Protein backbone atom coordinates (compact mmCIF):
# COMPACT_ATOMS: atom_id res chain seq x y z
CA UNK A 1 0.00 0.00 0.00
CA UNK A 2 3.02 2.35 -0.31
CA UNK A 3 1.43 3.92 -3.40
CA UNK A 4 -1.63 5.05 -1.41
CA UNK A 5 -2.12 8.83 -1.80
CA UNK A 6 -5.11 9.68 0.43
CA UNK A 7 -4.73 13.47 0.51
CA UNK A 8 -4.48 14.07 -3.25
CA UNK A 9 -7.27 11.51 -3.75
CA UNK A 10 -9.61 13.43 -1.44
CA UNK A 11 -8.70 16.83 -2.91
CA UNK A 12 -8.99 15.57 -6.51
CA UNK A 13 -12.26 13.80 -5.79
CA UNK A 14 -13.71 17.00 -4.32
CA UNK A 15 -12.83 18.89 -7.51
CA UNK A 16 -14.59 16.21 -9.58
CA UNK A 17 -17.68 16.55 -7.38
CA UNK A 18 -17.56 20.37 -7.57
CA UNK A 19 -17.29 20.43 -11.37
CA UNK A 20 -20.22 18.02 -11.72
CA UNK A 21 -22.23 20.04 -9.20
CA UNK A 22 -21.59 23.29 -11.09
CA UNK A 23 -23.07 21.79 -14.28
CA UNK A 24 -26.21 20.69 -12.41
CA UNK A 25 -26.63 23.92 -10.40
CA UNK A 26 -26.17 26.28 -13.34
CA UNK A 27 -27.33 24.35 -16.41
CA UNK A 28 -29.35 21.49 -14.90
CA UNK A 29 -27.26 18.86 -16.71
CA UNK A 30 -25.78 15.55 -15.54
CA UNK A 31 -21.99 15.64 -15.85
CA UNK A 32 -21.54 12.31 -17.60
CA UNK A 33 -18.29 12.55 -19.51
CA UNK A 34 -19.05 9.71 -21.97
CA UNK A 35 -22.51 11.09 -22.81
CA UNK A 36 -21.37 14.70 -23.18
CA UNK A 37 -18.31 13.83 -25.28
CA UNK A 38 -20.10 11.40 -27.61
CA UNK A 39 -23.02 13.80 -28.16
CA UNK A 40 -20.57 16.65 -28.81
CA UNK A 41 -19.33 14.55 -31.74
CA UNK A 42 -22.49 12.86 -33.03
CA UNK A 43 -25.35 15.29 -32.29
CA UNK A 44 -25.86 18.78 -33.67
CA UNK A 45 -28.26 20.00 -30.99
CA UNK A 46 -26.49 21.17 -27.84
CA UNK A 47 -23.08 20.80 -29.45
CA UNK A 48 -21.63 24.15 -28.36
CA UNK A 49 -21.91 23.70 -24.58
CA UNK A 50 -20.74 20.09 -24.88
CA UNK A 51 -17.67 21.15 -26.88
CA UNK A 52 -16.94 23.84 -24.26
CA UNK A 53 -17.10 21.13 -21.55
CA UNK A 54 -14.70 18.87 -23.52
CA UNK A 55 -12.34 21.84 -24.02
CA UNK A 56 -12.31 22.28 -20.24
CA UNK A 57 -11.49 18.58 -19.83
CA UNK A 58 -8.57 18.87 -22.23
CA UNK A 59 -7.08 21.98 -20.60
CA UNK A 60 -7.44 21.03 -16.90
CA UNK A 61 -4.34 18.81 -16.69
CA UNK A 62 -2.29 21.40 -18.63
CA UNK A 63 -3.10 23.94 -15.90
CA UNK A 64 -2.23 21.43 -13.18
CA UNK A 65 1.09 20.78 -14.94
CA UNK A 66 1.87 24.52 -14.91
CA UNK A 67 1.02 24.89 -11.21
CA UNK A 68 2.55 21.70 -9.80
CA UNK A 69 6.19 21.25 -10.76
CA UNK A 70 6.30 17.52 -9.93
CA UNK A 71 3.17 16.63 -11.92
CA UNK A 72 3.60 13.68 -14.25
CA UNK A 73 1.64 10.57 -15.24
CA UNK A 74 2.16 7.45 -17.29
CA UNK A 75 0.38 6.76 -20.59
CA UNK A 76 -0.30 3.43 -22.29
CA UNK A 77 1.69 1.96 -25.19
CA UNK A 78 -0.11 1.85 -28.53
CA UNK A 79 -0.98 -1.85 -28.54
CA UNK A 80 -3.85 -4.09 -29.66
CA UNK A 81 -4.87 -4.32 -26.00
CA UNK A 82 -5.15 -0.52 -25.69
CA UNK A 83 -7.23 -0.22 -28.86
CA UNK A 84 -9.53 -3.13 -27.96
CA UNK A 85 -9.99 -1.62 -24.48
CA UNK A 86 -10.92 1.74 -26.04
CA UNK A 87 -13.47 0.09 -28.32
CA UNK A 88 -15.02 -1.80 -25.37
CA UNK A 89 -15.17 1.35 -23.24
CA UNK A 90 -16.90 3.19 -26.10
CA UNK A 91 -19.44 0.42 -26.76
CA UNK A 92 -20.08 -0.23 -23.07
CA UNK A 93 -20.55 3.39 -21.99
CA UNK A 94 -22.92 4.08 -24.91
CA UNK A 95 -25.02 0.92 -24.40
CA UNK A 96 -24.88 1.30 -20.61
CA UNK A 97 -25.74 5.04 -20.74
CA UNK A 98 -22.78 6.22 -18.71
CA UNK A 99 -19.36 5.81 -17.19
CA UNK A 100 -17.57 6.50 -13.91
CA UNK A 101 -18.68 10.15 -13.82
CA UNK A 102 -22.29 9.83 -14.99
CA UNK A 103 -23.17 6.65 -13.08
CA UNK A 104 -20.44 6.52 -10.41
CA UNK A 105 -20.62 10.13 -9.23
CA UNK A 106 -23.77 11.89 -10.50
CA UNK A 107 -26.01 8.79 -10.56
CA UNK A 108 -25.06 7.34 -7.19
CA UNK A 109 -25.00 10.91 -5.82
CA UNK A 110 -28.73 11.20 -6.48
CA UNK A 111 -29.37 7.59 -5.38
CA UNK A 112 -30.39 6.27 -8.80
CA UNK A 113 -31.01 2.50 -8.76
CA UNK A 114 -29.81 2.17 -12.37
CA UNK A 115 -26.53 3.95 -11.62
CA UNK A 116 -25.85 2.03 -8.40
CA UNK A 117 -26.34 -1.25 -10.28
CA UNK A 118 -24.28 -0.14 -13.29
CA UNK A 119 -21.41 1.00 -11.04
CA UNK A 120 -21.42 -2.30 -9.12
CA UNK A 121 -21.26 -4.19 -12.43
CA UNK A 122 -18.44 -2.20 -14.07
CA UNK A 123 -16.44 -2.11 -10.81
CA UNK A 124 -16.80 -5.88 -10.33
CA UNK A 125 -15.88 -6.68 -13.95
CA UNK A 126 -13.02 -4.14 -13.85
CA UNK A 127 -11.57 -5.71 -10.69
CA UNK A 128 -12.00 -9.20 -12.13
CA UNK A 129 -10.27 -8.36 -15.43
CA UNK A 130 -7.44 -6.28 -13.92
CA UNK A 131 -6.74 -8.96 -11.31
CA UNK A 132 -6.69 -11.84 -13.83
CA UNK A 133 -4.91 -10.25 -16.80
Amino acid at each position, binding site marked *: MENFTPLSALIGGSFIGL*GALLLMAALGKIAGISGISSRAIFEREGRSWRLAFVAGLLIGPVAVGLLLSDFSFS*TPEFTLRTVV*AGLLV*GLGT*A*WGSGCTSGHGVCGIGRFSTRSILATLVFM*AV*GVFVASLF
Partner: protein
Amino acid sequence: MHLLIAFLAGFLMSVGIAVSKMIDPAKVVAFLDLTGNWDPSLALVMAAALAVYSIGFRLIRQKAAPILAEKFELPLLTKPDKPLLIGAAIFGLGWGLAGYCPGPAISALSAGSIGTLGFVIAMIAGWYLARKWPLPH
Protein backbone atom coordinates in the same frame (compact mmCIF):
# COMPACT_ATOMS: atom_id res chain seq x y z
CA MET B 1 -22.30 32.37 -20.06
CA HIS B 2 -23.54 28.80 -20.68
CA LEU B 3 -20.35 28.01 -22.55
CA LEU B 4 -18.16 29.47 -19.83
CA ILE B 5 -19.93 27.41 -17.14
CA ALA B 6 -19.69 24.23 -19.22
CA PHE B 7 -15.99 24.90 -19.83
CA LEU B 8 -15.40 25.52 -16.12
CA ALA B 9 -17.26 22.33 -15.14
CA GLY B 10 -15.13 20.23 -17.51
CA PHE B 11 -12.02 22.06 -16.34
CA LEU B 12 -12.72 21.45 -12.63
CA MET B 13 -13.45 17.77 -13.26
CA SER B 14 -10.23 17.16 -15.20
CA VAL B 15 -8.21 19.14 -12.63
CA GLY B 16 -9.65 16.68 -10.10
CA ILE B 17 -8.81 13.73 -12.34
CA ALA B 18 -5.24 15.05 -12.67
CA VAL B 19 -4.68 15.98 -8.99
CA SER B 20 -6.08 12.63 -7.79
CA LYS B 21 -3.78 10.86 -10.33
CA MET B 22 -6.72 9.00 -11.84
CA ILE B 23 -5.34 10.39 -15.10
CA ASP B 24 -2.62 7.73 -14.71
CA PRO B 25 -3.97 4.34 -15.89
CA ALA B 26 -1.29 2.53 -13.87
CA LYS B 27 -2.77 4.09 -10.72
CA VAL B 28 -6.30 2.97 -11.67
CA VAL B 29 -5.11 -0.58 -12.45
CA ALA B 30 -3.31 -0.61 -9.07
CA PHE B 31 -6.76 -0.09 -7.50
CA LEU B 32 -8.59 -2.63 -9.67
CA ASP B 33 -5.89 -5.33 -9.42
CA LEU B 34 -6.34 -6.95 -6.02
CA THR B 35 -3.52 -9.44 -6.58
CA GLY B 36 -0.67 -6.90 -6.81
CA ASN B 37 0.48 -3.99 -4.70
CA TRP B 38 -3.04 -2.74 -3.95
CA ASP B 39 -3.61 1.04 -3.97
CA PRO B 40 -6.96 2.09 -2.42
CA SER B 41 -6.69 5.74 -3.60
CA LEU B 42 -9.50 5.50 -6.19
CA ALA B 43 -11.98 4.56 -3.45
CA LEU B 44 -11.22 7.86 -1.71
CA VAL B 45 -11.53 9.81 -4.98
CA MET B 46 -15.01 8.33 -5.46
CA ALA B 47 -15.94 8.89 -1.81
CA ALA B 48 -14.94 12.58 -1.89
CA ALA B 49 -16.63 13.22 -5.24
CA LEU B 50 -19.79 11.47 -4.02
CA ALA B 51 -19.85 13.33 -0.70
CA VAL B 52 -19.59 16.71 -2.45
CA TYR B 53 -22.08 15.82 -5.19
CA SER B 54 -24.75 14.09 -3.09
CA ILE B 55 -24.89 16.88 -0.48
CA GLY B 56 -24.78 19.60 -3.15
CA PHE B 57 -27.42 17.86 -5.27
CA ARG B 58 -29.87 17.75 -2.34
CA LEU B 59 -29.43 21.49 -1.79
CA ILE B 60 -29.73 22.31 -5.50
CA ARG B 61 -32.89 20.24 -5.94
CA GLN B 62 -34.71 22.37 -3.38
CA LYS B 63 -34.76 25.11 -6.01
CA ALA B 64 -37.38 25.06 -8.75
CA ALA B 65 -34.88 25.43 -11.60
CA PRO B 66 -31.13 25.69 -12.31
CA ILE B 67 -29.57 29.16 -12.22
CA LEU B 68 -29.18 29.53 -16.01
CA ALA B 69 -31.66 27.01 -17.45
CA GLU B 70 -35.40 26.32 -17.38
CA LYS B 71 -35.33 22.89 -15.79
CA PHE B 72 -33.22 20.10 -14.36
CA GLU B 73 -32.64 17.46 -17.04
CA LEU B 74 -32.64 14.13 -15.23
CA PRO B 75 -32.66 10.74 -17.00
CA LEU B 76 -36.14 9.48 -17.92
CA LEU B 77 -35.24 5.82 -17.43
CA THR B 78 -35.44 4.72 -13.81
CA LYS B 79 -35.58 0.90 -13.99
CA PRO B 80 -32.53 -1.25 -14.73
CA ASP B 81 -32.67 -3.01 -18.11
CA LYS B 82 -30.57 -5.32 -20.27
CA PRO B 83 -28.63 -2.62 -22.19
CA LEU B 84 -27.61 -0.97 -18.90
CA LEU B 85 -26.19 -4.17 -17.40
CA ILE B 86 -24.59 -5.53 -20.59
CA GLY B 87 -23.14 -2.09 -21.36
CA ALA B 88 -21.75 -1.71 -17.84
CA ALA B 89 -20.12 -5.15 -18.04
CA ILE B 90 -18.49 -4.37 -21.42
CA PHE B 91 -17.31 -1.01 -20.08
CA GLY B 92 -15.82 -2.77 -17.02
CA LEU B 93 -13.99 -5.17 -19.32
CA GLY B 94 -12.33 -2.33 -21.24
CA TRP B 95 -11.66 -0.34 -18.05
CA GLY B 96 -9.93 -3.31 -16.42
CA LEU B 97 -7.82 -4.00 -19.51
CA ALA B 98 -6.45 -0.45 -19.93
CA GLY B 99 -7.13 1.44 -16.69
CA TYR B 100 -8.82 4.19 -18.70
CA CYS B 101 -12.42 5.34 -18.44
CA PRO B 102 -13.58 8.17 -20.74
CA GLY B 103 -12.73 11.17 -18.47
CA PRO B 104 -9.10 10.31 -17.71
CA ALA B 105 -8.44 9.20 -21.32
CA ILE B 106 -9.71 12.49 -22.79
CA SER B 107 -7.98 14.51 -20.05
CA ALA B 108 -4.66 12.77 -20.79
CA LEU B 109 -4.71 13.67 -24.51
CA SER B 110 -2.62 16.80 -23.89
CA ALA B 111 0.33 14.58 -22.91
CA GLY B 112 0.62 13.70 -26.60
CA SER B 113 0.82 9.91 -26.19
CA ILE B 114 -0.03 7.84 -29.24
CA GLY B 115 -1.39 5.10 -26.96
CA THR B 116 -3.87 7.52 -25.34
CA LEU B 117 -4.86 8.85 -28.76
CA GLY B 118 -5.41 5.30 -30.05
CA PHE B 119 -7.59 4.50 -27.04
CA VAL B 120 -9.71 7.65 -27.53
CA ILE B 121 -10.16 7.09 -31.29
CA ALA B 122 -11.20 3.47 -30.64
CA MET B 123 -13.59 4.70 -27.92
CA ILE B 124 -15.19 7.17 -30.34
CA ALA B 125 -15.56 4.32 -32.87
CA GLY B 126 -17.27 2.31 -30.10
CA TRP B 127 -19.67 5.19 -29.42
CA TYR B 128 -20.46 5.37 -33.14
CA LEU B 129 -21.10 1.61 -33.45
CA ALA B 130 -23.26 1.47 -30.31
CA ARG B 131 -25.36 4.38 -31.56
CA LYS B 132 -25.74 2.63 -34.90
CA TRP B 133 -26.71 -0.70 -33.31
CA PRO B 134 -28.58 -0.04 -30.05
CA LEU B 135 -29.09 -3.09 -27.82
CA PRO B 136 -32.69 -4.37 -27.67
CA HIS B 137 -34.41 -3.91 -24.29
